[in-house]
């Protein structure tokens, strides 16, 4: 029975459901100390002085550091030259939440008390907390070396003026993709122990080898005695890929005081100090004909980088503009982008990382075209889809060479679940009844770029390479250990890889372990991000398992005095096809694989051990069709999702239970962005949503159930055929929700409403329409 495609329960769960998980804050090595930050309460200010005397005098305090203590290694890796974020602010702070000082004490309670005793004297400077403020003439400049606040501007190659002038119709939109705080339930946390035998850093991180490589290089210490461990990690969503000052500060302090140093971020800190996501504004124009066919698309993306640009944040608009056309055949596409700094928390990847922003805008434009031409939005999509026979499909961007998909097919599948005609009739009926709630139906035909990625793709973001490592090693008793460079934090990768390996090796699922996250155990790796764990890492597991199996067959053939081509396996027994009675078990093959006298000529002991650095020739292109049905309370403006229909195409499904979970989770975050979440700053750069009371992560009562379906166009870039699905929900859901809201209000002439769609926004529109 094949496990690939089977609903298999997770190996990860027994520990986690009994409280036996091991998250970084659970670790309490002997002598462990606690580090606490003092963080800026000003968005932009000079630091006149920092008084640490009282804090240093508190019993139990072991160190109090400011930038004065770390003159030589002052900056956090991952930034841009000359624009680096310092580990601790020196002379000036540029965002609320920036670290100004750290305290290390014998326990976290004393450290918290000491932090309160530190007095920072700020001289406030004007602050720019929004893109428009930062780009206004005469705006205060964050980084003198830039001269202004634009870090980089990529102009249009060809602004398509002729195409737009000649088109029957054009329309434009200014679209805000609201800043979100990824908010994994586990904030950032790390524990550094720098002793005589080297540095060990435990960190809630998505790419431990990347951290190991970088931190060793940063400190000028050898990688062989530098170890990074990502144990159980409580969610990441992209925010735990970037380097943050605490990694380097805990290490330096551990070296200094000779004890382990642990930093456990509070939620209030997390909302201002963990990297934010989204924070883009789009100026989009579309040229189309009266039948709703798109003739040209022009998109400018302005990406808020926050106070300190980093490699990932700089790359987001590149991904957004590469995917500007979505799943549509658009003859002419012009893209441009700019990266702008503001006095806010730095921005980086958040589930989807640039692609939700792209799908949101193109899907809003589709609905706008529908509204302008009177053509049904479903029909507009059909008229513009890239057809099934058009792959491989070259887009306006060399990054985005679409290789598979059936966009019309996904929409067809979706419409089997949605009574679209009935809903439209109901919508009209309710419009005539002033006492009824308004009904809205919104679609999203979305496409994204995932499965990072082909050679060079992750290097552009500062990673060592774009492969993923898999080592499959058979033990003498015939059980198997897989060592992966993937670094899961909830995805169920251990279970998924064991399923893949079980199929390839013919070894029982329960006799396969998967190790990850520890650079001392897994020699090399890249990490989990960009929906690559199955598409790249899983393919590596398949490749390595396949090679081991071939050698196992050779050993079995030797033991059975048969030809390797004639050997098959069933119930962990090798035999010649047709003669199952004469078999040799995996355990015997494994044992003998270490015994030179037992091996076929030319085979070395230890042959059942294969390491693969798996590459893929292209990104993957998950896609899907979603439909959201909303009700709007005319009197309060309250929006309620009645139904959420979701059809995904992630190619081959390894484990339908886990794929479903990823879809639900991504959709939940997408709905949250559309209706609830907004990391909001006042004009002076002070965050107004700095706790979980005001930053509205929804709970179970605030979200709907999900109706899911699937189609499958296999990924041609790997033999598994799997595209990945981790970020799909957050790409597809926001436009479906907002399209539904706009649809509900379209009879009032509403063309657009920015996320999050709050009750007061809707009420203002309803009042305005009276």
């Amino acid at each position, binding site marked *: 029975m094949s496990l690939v495609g089977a609903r298999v329960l997770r190996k990860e769960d027994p520990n986690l459901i009994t409280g036996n998980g091991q998250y970084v804050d659970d670790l309490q090595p002997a002598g462990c100390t606690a580090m606490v930050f003092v963080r800026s309460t000003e968005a932009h200010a000079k630091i006149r002085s920092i008084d640490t005397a009282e804090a240093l005098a508190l019993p139990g305090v072991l160190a109090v550091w400011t930038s004065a203590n770390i003159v030589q290694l002052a900056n956090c890796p991952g930034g841009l030259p000359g624009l680096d974020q310092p580990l601790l602010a020196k002379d000036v702070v540029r965002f609320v939440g920036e670290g100004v000082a750290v305290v290390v004490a014998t326990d976290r*309670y004393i450290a918290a*008390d000491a932090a309160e005793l530190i007095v920072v004297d700020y001289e406030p400077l004007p602050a720019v907390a929004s893109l428009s403020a930062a780009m206004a003439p005469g705006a205060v400049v964050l980084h003198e070396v830039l001269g202004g606040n634009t870090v980089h501007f990529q102009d249009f190659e060809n602004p398509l003026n002729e195409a737009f002038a000649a088109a029957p119709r054009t329309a434009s939109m200014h679209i805000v993709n609201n800043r979100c705080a990824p908010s994994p339930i586990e904030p950032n946390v790390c524990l550094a122990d720098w002793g005589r035998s080297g540095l060990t850093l435990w960190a809630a991180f998505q790419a431990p080898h990347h951290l190991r490589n970088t931190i060793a290089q940063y400190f000028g210490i050898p990688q062989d005695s530098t170890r990074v461990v990502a144990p159980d990690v409580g969610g990441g969503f992209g925010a735990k890929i970037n380097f943050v000052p605490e990694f380097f500060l805990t290490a330096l302090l551990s070296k200094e005081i000779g004890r382990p140093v642990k930093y456990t971020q509070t939620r209030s800190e997390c909302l201002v100090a963990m990297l934010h996501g989204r924070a883009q504004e789009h100026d989009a124009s579309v040229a189309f004909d009266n039948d709703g066919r798109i003739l040209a698309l022009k998109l400018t993306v302005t990406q808020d980088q926050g106070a300190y640009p980093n490699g990932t944040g700089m790359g987001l608009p590149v991904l957004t503009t590469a995917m500007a056309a979505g799943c549509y055949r658009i003859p002419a596409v012009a893209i441009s982008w700019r990266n702008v700094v503001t006095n806010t928390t730095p921005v980086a990847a958040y589930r989807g990382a640039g692609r939700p922003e792209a799908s949101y805008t193109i899907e809003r434009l589709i609905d706008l075209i529908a509204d302008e031409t009177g053509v049904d939005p479903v029909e507009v999509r059909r008229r513009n889809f890239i057809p099934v026979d058009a792959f491989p499909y070259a887009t306006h961007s060399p990054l985005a060479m679409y290789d598979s998909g059936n966009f019309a097919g996904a929409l067809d599948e979706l419409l089997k679940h949605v009574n679209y005609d009935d809903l439209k009739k109901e919508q009209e009926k309710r419009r005539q009844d002033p006492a009824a709630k308004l009904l809205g139906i919104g679609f999203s035909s979305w496409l994204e770029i995932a499965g990072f990625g082909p050679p060079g793709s992750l290097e552009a973001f500062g990673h060592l390479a774009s492969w993923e490592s898999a080592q499959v090693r058979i033990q003498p008793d015939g059980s198997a250990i897989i060592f992966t460079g993937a670094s899961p934090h909830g995805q169920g990768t251990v279970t998924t890889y064991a399923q893949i390996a079980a199929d390839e090796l013919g070894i029982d699922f329960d006799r396969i372990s998967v190790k990850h996250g520890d650079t001392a155990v897994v020699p090399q790796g890249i990490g989990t991000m960009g929906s690559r764990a199955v598409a790249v890492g899983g393919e590596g597991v398949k490749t390595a398992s396949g090679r081991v199996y071939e050698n196992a067959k050779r050993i079995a053939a030797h033991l059975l005095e048969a030809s390797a081509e004639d050997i098959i396996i069933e119930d962990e027994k090798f035999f010649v096809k047709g003669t199952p009675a004469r078999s040799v078990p995996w355990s015997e093959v494994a044992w003998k694989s270490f015994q030179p006298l037992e091996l076929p000529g030319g085979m070395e002991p230890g042959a059942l051990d294969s390491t693969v650095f798996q590459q893929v020739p292209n990104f993957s292109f998950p896609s899907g069709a979603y439909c959201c049905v909303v009700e709007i309370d005319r*009197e309060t403006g309250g929006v309620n999702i009645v139904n959420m229909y979701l059809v995904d195409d992630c190619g081959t499904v390894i484990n339908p239970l886990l794929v479903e979970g990823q879809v639900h989770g991504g959709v939940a975050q997408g709905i949250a962005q559309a209706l609830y979440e907004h990391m909001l700053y006042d004009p002076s750069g002070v965050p107004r949503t700095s706790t979980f009371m005001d930053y*509205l992560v929804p*709970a179970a*009562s*605030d979200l709907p159930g999900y109706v899911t379906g699937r189609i499958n166009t296999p990924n041609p870039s790997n033999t598994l055929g799997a595209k990945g699905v981790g970020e799909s929900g957050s790409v597809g859901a926001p436009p479906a929700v907002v399209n539904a809201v706009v649809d509900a209000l379209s009879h009032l002439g509403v063309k657009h409403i920015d996320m999050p769609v709050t009750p007061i926004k809707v009420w203002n529109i309803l009042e305005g329409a009276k």
Partner: protein
Amino acid sequence: MIPAQFDYVEATSVADAIRLLAEHGDEAKLLAGGHSLIPLMKLRLVTPATLIDVTHIKELSYIKEDGNNIVIGALTRHRDIEESELVKKHLPLVAHVAGEVGDPQVRNRGTIGGSLVHGDPAADLPAAALATGATMVIAGQNGERRISAQDFFVDFLETDVQSGEMLTAIEFPKHTDAGWAYEKFVRRAMDYSIVGVALQLGAKPGVALVNMSNKPHLAVSASQAIGKGAAIADVLAVINDDTNPPEDLNATVEYRQHLARVLTQRAFASASK
């Protein structure tokens, strides 16, 4: 996340608590369920020198019938009020509102006394106390005194409980078989109301508003209008009298006033069934 240090004493009775309050003065705070106080202490917005823990004074956790009143001890938990057959029968508005406070974990610890003395204009139970015309029983060194709910809430997070006093009980007149409703408009289910309306109909009607002023608010004009049998439109015309709605992340003054009218109308429709 970590509160400042404090001294901790446990009160074993009301008299003991009064004595400890006198001893420690204004630097002491009473600790009951802790779900208003402890979050403030963890953010160090409040740093009392001493906490007087009253959670173990069992004699203050009760619900009893006393003639025409239902009397609820100040340390009765929200969840016990929500589930009480007595309260459901005679004060269904109060039972319902107690079930709307926060989330289940909050209701397992939070007490009615703690909520009322905290006096948050955005909280649910103060509105229920106002709408039902409750009387607060306050104990101090000079004995016991009573004050109406309306006079109890003085200003933002400030009640009439003086230095050295503690709220010991709340006397609710029975509203058996009278119509009632509670309309709570929120972003997320667990959130404080953007606006809430507590409506008690019957012989002595009252309507109170949540998050419409700097303190829990009894809509006096509207309550009087209801008592005179006014039409709903006339009640709505005065519902916002004397309010001072805040402007915040979720709402403007105008939107809150609008919501107050909408929710009051809905409360009426629901209460009259």
